[in-house]
């Protein structure tokens, strides 16, 4: 019975909210427009940030540890060393580079000047194991820890892992993340401020309605409920429009931008993952609801 009463009430509030939107179409268009633009800026920022993170992840694959040997390893040596390296925490892939393979690579780097290598035997080059690390192990500390445990293995002496490059890459990544957090933080504060003030103004423009409802004996909840539902609808519509616009911008301008930004030359920029889209819609709904709630608090004391 009370459930029925509640759903009836909710039906009334929902219908009232829809009628209010129709009757106050101008202020609603202004609010939805503000939410759309604000969230479009936030989602553009997210799109760039997510792609930077993706690019960083693919760059970090270059973090490799190489173990050198001054002789060719037998098949048995190779496989026993390979399995003991793979048993170390953090190792993801191990490949053996024979003298011939190393010489081939060297030759291809000297393309056009191969004559320089005439008379140079392949035996001068060392053989090696190239070890890729799991993504969680690719920061400076992770690499150091891996190398330390690698040194414990018998038969391994010379190890190289481009310490300087790993260190720089890590500080670059940390800088990008810090910048992202700062910019994102400012952006969120600005968006909350702009949206809540717009909602405040639109509710101020309708304060007569609040006053009349209060005069005829409406409870605070009864006055607020349709406005809150209106706020939720505005937030949902605004955020969906922002995502649609972002998709449009992405398809028209950004889809192929990756190739000249050299982020990820093979696939170009990627669109926001589903969970980010869902997050933006939720954020829009939350913004609309909270903006209305705080504004109503200010005006309902008639």
């Amino acid at each position, binding site marked *: 019975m009370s459930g029925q009463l509640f759903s009836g009430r909710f039906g009334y509030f929902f219908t009232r909210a829809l009628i209010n939107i129709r009757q106050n179409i101008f202020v609603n268009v202004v609010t939805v427009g503000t939410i759309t633009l604000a969230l479009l800026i936030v989602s553009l920022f997210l799109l760039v940030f997510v792609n930077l993170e993706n690019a960083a992840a693919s760059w970090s694959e270059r973090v490799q540890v190489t173990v050198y040997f001054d002789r060719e390893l037998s098949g048995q040596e190779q496989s026993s060393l390979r399995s003991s390296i793979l048993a170390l925490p953090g190792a993801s892939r191990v490949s053996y580079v024979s003298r011939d393979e190393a010489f081939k690579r060297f030759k291809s780097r000297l393309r056009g000047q191969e004559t320089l290598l005439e008379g140079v035997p392949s035996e001068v080059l060392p053989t090696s194991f190239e070890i890729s690390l799991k993504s969680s192990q690719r920061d400076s500390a992770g690499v150091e820890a891996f190398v330390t445990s690698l040194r414990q293995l018998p038969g391994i002496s010379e190890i190289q892992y481009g310490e300087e490059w790993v260190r720089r890459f890590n500080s670059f990544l940390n800088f990008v993340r810090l910048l992202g957090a700062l910019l994102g933080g400012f952006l969120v504060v600005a968006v909350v401020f702009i949206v809540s003030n717009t909602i405040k103004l639109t509710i101020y423009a309708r304060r007569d309605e609040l006053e009349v409802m209060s005069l005829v*004996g409406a409870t605070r909840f009864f006055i607020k409920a349709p406005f809150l539902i209106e706020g939720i609808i505005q937030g949902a519509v605004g955020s969906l429009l922002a995502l649609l616009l972002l998709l449009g911008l992405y398809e028209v301008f950004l889809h192929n931008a990756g190739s000249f930004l050299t982020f990820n030359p093979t696939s170009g920029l990627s669109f926001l993952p589903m969970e980010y889209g869902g997050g933006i819609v939720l954020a829009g709904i939350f913004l609309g609801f909270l903006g209305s709630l705080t504004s109503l608090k200010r005006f309902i004391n008639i």
Partner: protein
Amino acid sequence: MIQLHNVSLAYQKDASALNDITLHIHKGEFIFMTGPSGAGKTTLLRLLYGALTPTRGQVLIDGQNVSRLTPSEIPFLRRSIGVVFQDFKLLSSRTVFENVAITLEVLGWGRADIGKKVMHILRQMGLESKIHLTPQRLSGGEQQRVALARALVNEPKILLADEPTGNLDDANKNQILNIFKEANVKGTTVVVATHDRRLIENSHKRLVTLSKGDIVEQLEKEEGIKPF
């Protein structure tokens, strides 16, 4: 029905809007309050529907102490009081019908009942052909009748009016006065604040005169009021 005991109200510390007012209005009574602008008429009405609380003294409506009501209890007091103003306070985005229906929606009435009741009162007010219009399309007199319909549609115990005829011509004033009288005959206690002497002269009702926050004169209805 309405009792004020030694009621004072100060908006600021040393400027009081009402001084030690004691006034009793009986059930089914019709009274006028008059006085110059700033005399305290509007303040007194606002005390009666709980929009203000007195600095001192007590306001009782139907035995209920208004100054002791919590904010969540005030709406229930207002459901038994209809209020009309000089500027009508109609919602410009809603039709005449919707403006009147608000009162019953707040009370949780069903749609069909609201429709019947609203049409009934709008017919009484002579507005049945205007239900679909927004208030801007109506004359001042028509707008005040819509406001009265909104105030009276749930048959309140008390009707408060603050300068209800301030913006109206003579023909419309009489029409509005007649609506007050009809509501009063049906049992509603009516309190009208006005400085429109003609309205008061024509009606022969009890008259309370305020000046600078004090009651300076009370005339019973038998005494009438001398024309200027």
